């Protein structure tokens, strides 16, 4: 009933663990049967290992949290050797999320990930706001984003999903540019660039000054972006941003998302994604839907406001 096809890959259901919030899948296996998920996005990978950012890395905000992890990861070679074999036993689709400091790093990273079995989709993160050279610059301007996508496309033998930043100047134009440059799907949104100040210390809470905002607080904005993007491109859209319940997930699907990713909600409740899968199942049963596609993108393309 919930089976979903995402750029040629069959997912059991449209509920995917968002990158950076689910490790490499092992941690939450202790809490629930992760094979019930539609897929898992790996922690953001880079060609070379990274230690991530110094200083405080998390801060709570009203209905949200800011993080400044900064792409800490063991590097793609170590991922392939140590993590991927274990991930493949989890019984769900594996989406390798890849970040990069420069174009060369992206290309080489995608090449390595393309050559292995067990990676189903490559998610190109051009939008991480927490690394100095780490992709944010790629995620703001359409032409820059398109050039990254165009550069990795030839070496990418897997379906290529591009993860967009809500900090992009024009996220719809950005999605169109990525589609034209060869993306098979887009996922959105990554975290919003945000600031918190420690008024007692009279300085920014984070060493990097800004950090990425996620969680329920961003949902209304993310949903609007997904709707706008879904009506502008022909490749699938994966909705992300503050999804915590099956109703939230359904809103994204109705706005035009083929699948969704869940991040912060898992911290609030380890089994949140399971509840979402179950909730969507019941919804389909109650509404006599044979597929969620029936309710996908039902708002129409009419944009009453400029």
């Amino acid at each position: 009933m919930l089976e979903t096809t995402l750029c040629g890959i069959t997912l059991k259901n449209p509920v995917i663990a968002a990158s950076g919030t689910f490790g490499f899948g092992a941690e939450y296996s202790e809490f629930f049967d992760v094979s019930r998920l539609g897929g898992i996005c790996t922690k953001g990978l880079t060609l070379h290992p990274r230690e991530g950012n110094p200083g405080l890395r998390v801060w709570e905000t009203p209905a949200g949290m800011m993080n400044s992890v900064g792409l800490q990861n063991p590097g793609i070679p170590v991922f392939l050797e140590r993590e991927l074999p274990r991930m493949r036993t989890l019984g769900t689709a594996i989406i390798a999320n890849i970040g990069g400091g420069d174009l060369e790093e992206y290309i080489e990273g995608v090449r390595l990930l393309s050559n292995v079995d067990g990676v189903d989709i490559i998610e190109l993160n051009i939008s991480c706001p927490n690394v100095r050279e780490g992709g944010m610059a790629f995620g703001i301007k359409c032409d820059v984003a398109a050039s990254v996508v165009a550069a990795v496309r030839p070496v990418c033998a897997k379906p290529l999903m591009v993860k967009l930043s809500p900090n992009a100047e024009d996220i719809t134009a950005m999605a169109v540019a990525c589609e034209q440059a060869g993306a098979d799907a887009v996922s959105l949104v990554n975290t919003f660039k945000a600031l918190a100040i420690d008024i007692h210390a009279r300085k920014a809470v984070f060493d990097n000054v800004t950090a990425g905002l996620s969680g329920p607080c961003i949902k209304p904005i993310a949903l609007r972006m997904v709707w706008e993007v879904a009506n502008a491109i022909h490749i699938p859209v994966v909705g992300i941003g503050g999804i915590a319940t099956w109703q939230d997930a359904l809103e994204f699907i109705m706005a035009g998302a083929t699948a969704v990713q869940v991040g912060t909600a898992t911290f609030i409740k380890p089994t949140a994604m399971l509840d979402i899968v179950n909730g969507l199942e019941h919804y389909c049963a109650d509404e006599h839907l044979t597929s969620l596609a029936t309710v996908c993108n039902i708002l129409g393309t009419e944009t009453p406001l400029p």
Partner: protein
Amino acid sequence: MTNLSPAYVEGTTVLSQERLTEDVYRLTVATTTGGAPGQFYMVRAWEREPLLARPLSVHSVDEDTVSFLYQVRGRGTELLAHLEQGGTVALTGPLGHGFHTEELCGRIAIVTGGIGIAPMFCLARTLPSGDVTVIAGFKSAPYAVAQFVNLGVDVRIATEDGCDGTRGFCTEIFDPHIYDMVVTCGPMSMMARVAHLCAEASVPCQASLEAHMACGVGACLVCSCATVLGNQRVCADGPVFDATEVIWHA
């Protein structure tokens, strides 16, 4: 002691809530999930706000209860303090790697600052009482020390305002040379001092670190601490670390 594997359980019943001082409470809940000394739970006693659960160490444990000893610091712990008998909490745990109890032999010093005493009671219960000294520092009136005395453990107290025990910091009444093993928990600056003293005296030291957490299970990497092995996750690789591996001034 073996670290137990975790579960997520909603609706865990509060058996008791005791107020020990102005801002320190002991909360006991009905759960069979247990926990080894130094392990912790992510605790949540509210629906939506604050967003994240709060890490609390296992203070005391038996077959079908777990107790937490906590200090009200902000919104989360304040809401915990509102809990009454019969109320419920959501628990994720037990989590993390606790104290390496197999290494704890000979004369053992437990050095704590403030609420850092919380994880030490269940640890002390597993140790031969005659070999253990608790050196506990407090801002003002001490709490949760009688139970150590009841175990037959030697307890020495330092208070910053001098209202009990020696006036000053616990590190001032701690001489590492007379111990074979040290375990410590408290503010980072205090643990750094303990670690330094132990290193100078070449006494092994285990420190239970603190960090702001989101997932608590090792999946998000927000709780990292700098160690000689690179960044480690306090929640999953710790919270207990060999003090010599921690880079204290990072």
